[in-house]
């Protein structure tokens, strides 16, 4: 095309530079501040452009003096659980919804998609009560059906089942994993596959289960990896739910630990360099993940058609 695009390209260039600067500024400030010692920071009296030499020392203190390393491990386990459960449950369910003939399909699809409407943060108060005793619904059921009364007559004592998942990895992860956006994404993907796929597999004598594992799973690798990464990061960045579901510091993920670290020493000017080092420490794994995997994530979430 012979078209004069210099004007618009120059504008685009300026816009992108400003955008990148906006994104990078907090990160750069975090790095600069994390390179200062506490004394340097206090005497500097504010944000400066000077680079200190204490970055490694602050990181060493994060690793040795705070609970963040252990909490980083908690984050990894919780995020893996969240991503794993979300992908596995959604994959099998979507397989059923797309490849099975059932009048329940529509209802189940609606029920799962509706979870997107209400984020977990909204339900924290009551979810907490359920996780504190996951047997609660069972007790209600026994009571309503009269079975509780029956067993009370037989055994002679009232029995209530109890199982608390507070402060456990699984208890933190399960409620986060309820949001079922994956069903939507997988469904889009399955529907784009050739319609004759299951028929062909059946002719080869493959059971539905075999078809799912041997044919569908390898085909779905791209969206699976993308959603897994996406939910891993989603689990990592959760805050409100882990804050309440994991009360003891040993069970909390790193993001919660970082926020708590900000309030540990109210008696002196906060150790901002240590906090900034902590923020970088906590964000390192997901940022690297998204940096390395961004192409796959974008492609797998079907966000780009090119």
């Amino acid at each position: 095309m012979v078209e004069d695009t210099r004007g618009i390209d120059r504008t685009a260039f300026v816009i992108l530079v400003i955008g990148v600067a906006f994104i990078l500024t907090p990160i750069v400030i975090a790095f600069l501040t994390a390179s200062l010692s506490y004394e340097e920071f206090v005497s500097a009296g504010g944000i400066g452009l000077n680079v200190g030499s204490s970055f490694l020392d602050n990181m060493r203190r994060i690793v040795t003096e705070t609970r963040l390393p252990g909490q980083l491990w908690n984050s990894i386990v919780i995020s893996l659980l969240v991503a794993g459960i979300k992908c596995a449950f959604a994959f099998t369910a979507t397989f059923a919804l797309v490849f099975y003939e059932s009048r329940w399909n529509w209802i189940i699809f609606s029920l799962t998609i509706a979870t997107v409407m209400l984020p977990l943060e909204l339900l924290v108060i009551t979810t907490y009560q359920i996780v504190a005793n996951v047997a609660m619904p069972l007790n209600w059921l026994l009571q309503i059906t009269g079975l509780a009364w029956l067993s009370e007559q037989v055994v002679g004592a009232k029995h209530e089942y109890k199982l608390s998942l507070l402060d456990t990895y699984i208890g933190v992860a399960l409620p986060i994993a309820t949001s079922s956006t994956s069903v939507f994404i997988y469904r889009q993907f399955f529907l784009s596959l050739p319609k004759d796929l299951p028929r062909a597999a059946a002719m080869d004598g493959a059971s539905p289960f075999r078809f799912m594992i041997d044919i569908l799973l390898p085909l779905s690798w791209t969206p699976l990896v993308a959603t897994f990464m996406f939910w891993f990061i989603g689990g990592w960045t959760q805050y409100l739910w882990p804050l309440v579901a994991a009360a003891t510091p040993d069970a909390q993920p790193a993001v919660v630990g970082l926020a708590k670290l900000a309030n540990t020493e109210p008696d002196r000017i906060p150790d901002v360099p240590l906090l900034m080092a902590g923020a970088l420490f906590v964000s390192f794994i997901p940022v690297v993940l998204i940096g390395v995997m961004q192409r796959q994530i974008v492609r797998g979430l079907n966000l780009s058609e090119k």
Partner: protein
Amino acid sequence: MTKLGFTACAAAFLAGASAAHAAEIEFWYGNTGKIEEAIQAHCAAFNDAQSDHMITCVGQGGYEAGMQKAIAAYRSAQHPVLIQFFDAGTLDLMLSEAVVPVQEIMPDAPWDDYINGARSYYETSSGDLFSQPYNGSTLIFYANMEMLGDAGIEEVPQSWEGVMDAARQLKAAGVECPFTTDAHPWRVLEQFSARHGAPIATNNNGYGGLDGEYTFNEGPVADHMLNLSKWREEGLLKLDQDTVAGKYNAAFNAGECAMMEASTGSYGAAYAALGDKVRITMAPMYDGVERRNTLIGGAAIWVMKGHDDADYEAAISFLNFVREEDQQIEFTRRTGYMPVTKAALASLVASGKADSLEFATAEMGVASLNQPGDENSRGIRLGFYVQFREFFKEETQKAFNGDQTMQAALDNAVARGNELLRRFEQTYQGTELP
């Protein structure tokens, strides 16, 4: 599934060890940092000192988080025998029907030995202790003698009038922050009204029944709050948000502010930062008002219902253990909290250590708590008080920021507080105040 869980592991561990001990119990506490270490040291010392019982102390990361977990645990009958909880939640726990009064399960303990301000806060209207005071603090006044001296002030002021005279002198000498507080209701409302013998609410701050009403929007508290906002405009007082350090005690410790009102528990950090420039005294009074006792801050240990006799035996044994004079003194040394029994204080004084750095606040604090009391300095017995504190902070903060007058802020806080009291009354309909 639960294999992954911490609690499950702890439970399994306990179950495995059960053969060796008569009873294992859990104690949930809220503190973190240095205080947490001291609590864990208590637990370890208890387990070492005897072999009949075994206590596991579980940190909850905060008083509120601990309470919330205790609520959920109690609802599903998985609650610990002992739980530490802070002053403001006293009435909520008293009426919860989830706790056993300590004086009921251990009638022979020396309850009369607890110092006045600590007793009255946690006792029933008939004078029985409901919970055992554990980590006790109270409000005192701090001055940076170097800054005062530079402005030509030799003595730490004892009265509010004196504080403001000193503040003006400091300001004239170029000190930007003469006096600082965070205006938290614990300081400016509860401790202030108690030692000035002024009520916060009718019914003796709720001790006389659930139908009380807040009244602090008139009288000494209101006058004081109006003064605070006047002093702030004059540049004599800085709140958290006005200080460079961002927090009143950090500002004092950094040498930004010359005087502050703070808990006895702040002494350790202040001394570490300023050395012997720090001088403390009892919290200031307005001239012409007779001094009453201040209230105990910190927390007490509560015994929860629904456990068997062996568990309670272990709990009693632990409560007796932490009351021992040596244990209290050691706890004071590590945390800056005060001894809560007269015997412990006497033994501290007798040992000659009371004047040393670690114990500097003990005598001063206990003296403040042990001032003669009256019906308005017993404590706070008001429902949903934790939520009320939030309301008070929000409304007065608006006044300090110039969005409304201080009088309007106090009126609003009273009105919103009264709504809370009415709802509390309705929630606990048919329940007697113990």
